[in-house]
């Protein structure tokens, strides 16, 4: 029996750009997606992430630059010749075909003979544990099974690159979690270079080897999830990742402290000048003395509290504390920012200061 094992290839984007008439959707960008890596492209809607994916797939014409897959220039090739396979939002299965026909359609188009075709279809179906459903129509399957059909349809062609276009965005929260686990274990088995587009930070954090954060078609940061979370390269990334997002507070450094607008001390630090101070809500502690914060709103999420508080100069700060701490007082809260967790950003460029 033929094993559905796929090889993988590195994707290199070289000054790749896209414009629709006068509108520049993606200014020239360069990046390298490593062999076998799971990259998540994350960004708000309209940031160009789907366009980028479609360009890699060959569904969208490239306006400038190059796409190299496995070292071969692919930007002018037909989609079927690029060695890419794609899983779509809502899966886009062919509703009138059986599961087997859905999986085998690309082979049929490629004129693979019937015997080999059915062998490969069965192998792909077995790979995603669907061999009992080969005669069903997509309409008779559950959401999870449909996703597996979509994946089998992709891997049957033995692609070097797997592309995912927000495949989980229309599922409910519970199913989404299951699908994430499945995708993750699947990637470990196929090992094809994977590119996954989403606007959901949880999907990005959990699935990715590396996350590419896109903003207005530009790469804000391209790094491991932990680095993206702990060392955001810009205020955009800081704001986009984390729930609730990182606090961004305007401060002035005098050499020993960072002070708020009214001159009161917020934290200890040696840098001088105006900064945006970033601190994650869970890195704000409550203690007997320190900068004052008046709580205006508390959300009890069961496992932890999220508090919205006002600092002495009127700026807002969100604080996240575990539930086992005693219920905090509403006013006259004293807080402390843990020094090692403080990130500074330049107010002009919005970029991180190392």
């Amino acid at each position, binding site marked *: 029996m033929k094993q559905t094992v796929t090889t993988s290839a590195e994707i290199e984007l070289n000054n790749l750009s896209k414009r629709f008439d006068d509108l520049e959707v993606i200014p020239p960008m360069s990046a390298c997606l490593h062999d076998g890596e799971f990259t998540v492209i994350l960004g708000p809607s309209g940031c160009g992430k789907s366009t980028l994916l479609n360009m890699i797939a060959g569904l969208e014409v490239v306006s400038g630059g190059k796409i190299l897959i496995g070292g071969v220039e692919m930007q002018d090739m037909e*989609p079927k010749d690029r060695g890419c396979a*794609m899983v779509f*939002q809502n899966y886009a299965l062919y509703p009138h075909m059986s599961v087997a026909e859905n999986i085998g359609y690309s082979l049929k188009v490629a004129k693979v003979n019937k015997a080999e075709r059915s062998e490969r279809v069965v192998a792909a179906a077995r790979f995603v544990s669907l061999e009992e459903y080969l005669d069903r129509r997509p309409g008779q399957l559950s959401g999870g099974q449909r996703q597996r059909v979509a994946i089998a349809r992709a891997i049957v062609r033995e692609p070097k690159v797997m592309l995912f276009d927000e495949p989980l965005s229309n599922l409910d929260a519970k199913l989404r979690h299951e699908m994430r686990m499945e995708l993750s274990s699947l990637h470990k088995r196929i090992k094809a270079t994977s590119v996954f587009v989403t606007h959901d930070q949880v999907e990005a954090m959990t699935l990715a080897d590396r996350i590419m954060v896109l903003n207005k078609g530009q790469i804000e940061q391209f790094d491991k999830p932990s680095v993206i979370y702990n060392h955001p390269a810009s205020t955009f990334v800081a704001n986009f990742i984390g729930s609730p997002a990182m606090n961004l507070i305007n401060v002035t450094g005098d050499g020993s402290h960072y002070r708020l607008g009214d001159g009161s001390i917020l934290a200890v630090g040696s840098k001088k000048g105006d900064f945006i101070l970033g601190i994650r809500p869970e890195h704000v502690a409550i203690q007997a003395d320190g900068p004052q914060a008046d709580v205006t709103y508390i959300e009890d999420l069961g496992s932890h509290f999220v508090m919205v508080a006002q600092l002495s100069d009127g700026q807002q700060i969100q604080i996240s504390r575990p539930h086992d701490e005693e219920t905090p007082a509403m006013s006259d809260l004293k807080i402390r920012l843990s020094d090692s967790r403080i990130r500074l950003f330049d107010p002009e460029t919005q970029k991180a200061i190392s």
Partner: protein
Amino acid sequence: MIEKTKGVDRAANIVLATGMIFILFPLVITLVTATQSYEDFVRNGFSFMPGTHFLDNISIVIETTHLPRQILNSIIMATMMATIKCVIAFLTAYAIVYFRIRYGGIIFAMVLVTNLMPLELRFITTYQVASNVMLPVNAFLEFTGIARIIELISGHHPHYKLSILNTYFGLAAPLLANGTGTFLFRQYFRSLPADLSKAAKMDGAGPIRFLWDILMPLSKSNFAALFLIMFLGGWTQYLWPLVAASTPEMQTAVVGLARLSPGIPGEVPQYPAIMAGAVMVSVIPLLMIAFMQRHIVRGLTLTEK
């Protein structure tokens, strides 16, 4: 909001029943009269007493009129019209929905405008063109001066003539342009998942393959519904077939049926036979509706997943 009160229900039922009687009355008269003998009819006039001469009346129609041939004509013409309309509508909608066409919106609007221009409005010009389809070619040759050049070279002034009157094509062609089908298919295509065409492209299927393997099978119900509507539309056409077909052998069933009525002046018309003819003409559309009813509902609701 649906109100459920007895009074309203009863009133509605009375209105519906009245409407039913109003619609069914002529049909009953037709059916009953078709079973009576001419003698009975002359003696009693229109009555509700069914007779036993239905088959006799049918054989009178078959033997003495062109109706059987004309029914065949109608089948050919209506099938031709419905088929071509479906194909054109499908392809137009495919182009509008799945390709980025410059001015696609304007083209679609113009297709829809054809619904506002029924044949009756452009009757005389249509007849002129049908009587000589080379008319535009002649006009073009004259306008550009090519006619003069041909005359200088060959000595003949070019004037081409080709009439499609009294042919099946001539019966069907002027009625082919119609935006309804395009609209129907366009709406249906837009209700399909947008990524379907991308998925097909990734699977290596080109535009024609996608059309054939994916879009056509998915549109089966729409085809059936549209075909039926267009077939019935073609079947009941009266004015154009009346003008475009000049011999009884080329006329359509509806035209032929209308020609049956006037008998010899002063004599009572052969109504039983005429009614039998009317029954014959109605049978085929009725059968089509009966067999395709399921598809029509599915094809017109657009909610298929």
